[in-house]
């Protein structure tokens, strides 16, 4: 699914402008690094795509869906097609690795046999099969992040959003995670990754969109973390 953000402004009460007049189009299957300092509006932009936040002005459309006009039921169905990976993983601590990944399939009504098959497949693919009976607190940071990714891709979403997926990880683990995201993207999933990790962005040259103070200040096809020109 392609993502179209047109003239979006978001103001939070009392008077904090998180995004201002943002235009961004992400075609289907694209891979975008969203960079910029803390507070530049990256997370707000991602949360608009999941419709946790709605714009004060402008439109966000994903595929055929205009997010502003979605009903509650349509929103549920829309979100099944958008995977999210959080910086703090948001894994459910009382569930095992297997249950965490199975859970997101169960809650949308996938039959138990299919849930087992898909979960096993995803865990195998992400190298977590041997860890399937462990609880999140028994895993390393990298493993927890992989579980979060496994959970996000378990329903085969068309769009995957990752907010600082390498935030707490060492360089090697971060590189593994990004390779994993690239392999998911290679299968046609549209990907937006918000990151502060310069090494990663520079190593895997992809489209880079830079935000500053709620505005897009750079959009480069095979960009670097830092701009070549002084912004």
């Amino acid at each position, binding site marked *: 699914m392609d993502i179209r953000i047109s003239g979006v402004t978001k103001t*939070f009460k009392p008077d904090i402008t998180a995004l201002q007049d943002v235009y961004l189009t992400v075609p289907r299957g694209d891979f975008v690094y969203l960079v910029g300092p803390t507070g530049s509006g990256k997370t707000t932009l991602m949360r608009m795509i*999941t419709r*946790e936040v709605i714009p004060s002005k402008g439109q966000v459309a994903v595929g055929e869906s205009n997010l502003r006009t979605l009903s509650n039921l349509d929103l*549920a*169905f829309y979100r099944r097609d958008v995977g999210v990976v959080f910086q703090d993983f948001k894994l*459910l601590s009382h569930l095992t690795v297997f249950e965490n990944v199975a859970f*997101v399939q169960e*809650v949308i009504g996938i039959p*138990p046999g299919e849930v087992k098959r898909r979960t096993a497949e995803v865990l195998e693919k992400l190298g977590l099969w041997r860890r399937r009976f462990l609880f999140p607190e028994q895993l390393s940071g990298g493993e927890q992040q992989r579980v979060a990714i496994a959970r996000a891709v378990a329903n085969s979403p068309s769009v995957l959003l990752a907010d600082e997926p390498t935030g707490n990880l060492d360089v090697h683990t971060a590189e593994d995670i990004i390779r994993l995201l690239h392999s998911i993207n290679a299968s046609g999933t549209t990907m937006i990754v918000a990151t502060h990790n310069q090494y990663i962005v520079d190593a895997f040259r992809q489209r880079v969109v830079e935000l500053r103070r709620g505005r897009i200040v750079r959009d480069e096809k095979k960009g670097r973390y830092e701009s070549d020109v002084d912004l």
Partner: protein
Amino acid sequence: MSTFRYIIRDTFRLLSRHWGLSFLTLVTAVAVFYLVGASALFVLNSKYLVATVEGSLTIQAYVEDTPEAMEAVTSRAAAFDCVSSVEPITSGQALERLRARLGNQADAVTLLGQNPLPPSVEIQVRKAAFASVVAREMISMPEVEDVVYAGELAERLESISAFVSRLSLVVLLISVTSAALVLFNTIRISVYARKEEIDTMLLVGTTQFFVSFPFVLQGVILGAVGALLSSLLLGFSYGFAVDALHRSLPFLRLISDPKLVMRLSGVLVLGGVSVGWVCSWLAVSKFVRSASRPH
């Protein structure tokens, strides 16, 4: 089908994960529904007692010893809607009754010589409250010489009956409100304990129905099981109370129809289900609505 299975599984997960809270709610629900049932039985029995006494409440109107007077009073009494039966008693019949009442000492009436008992009309009213009205009407008739009835008893019974009904209604309201509040808070605590889980569920595309329904079922199960257990307790304790009262105060009859307790249990379980449903729905729907609302 899978959705339904997951909902049932989640419901039992909810009950077992917060088992301490569930148990406490169950105990409270049992106590509260027991109180509801007991007050209902109290009302029914007091009404039954009042009705029994009212059924035997008789107005005795003594009339002049002429067939015309007897006829006039009988027809006047029968004209009241609230009168259930009218029976003219001649002097001879009154004497026969007295003999029957005296049993083996019946011969004592021969000592009276001429029959001193006056003719009368026995009037039974449907409700105690009507007794004084009918009695006043009777005494105003020139053919009636005197009227005897348990006027004070009738009025007292009526006021006790009204008071018991009002008191029981208040007890019933307080009990049901307490049950509702306890269930509401239990479900709310369960919902808040699973806040993170609910947020994640909503974010991966779970419908509000799927999120809410296990909580609603949790409330329904707690309400229904609480009401069912209280019904069993009530059945046993009521049976015991009826037996004990019958042994110590045989003249005081309580309702001993087993169908009554069965019917009351049905009403209690239905009440438990309804209260559980409404309270848990209120608790969870508000939370889920606010969690789904975009910022």
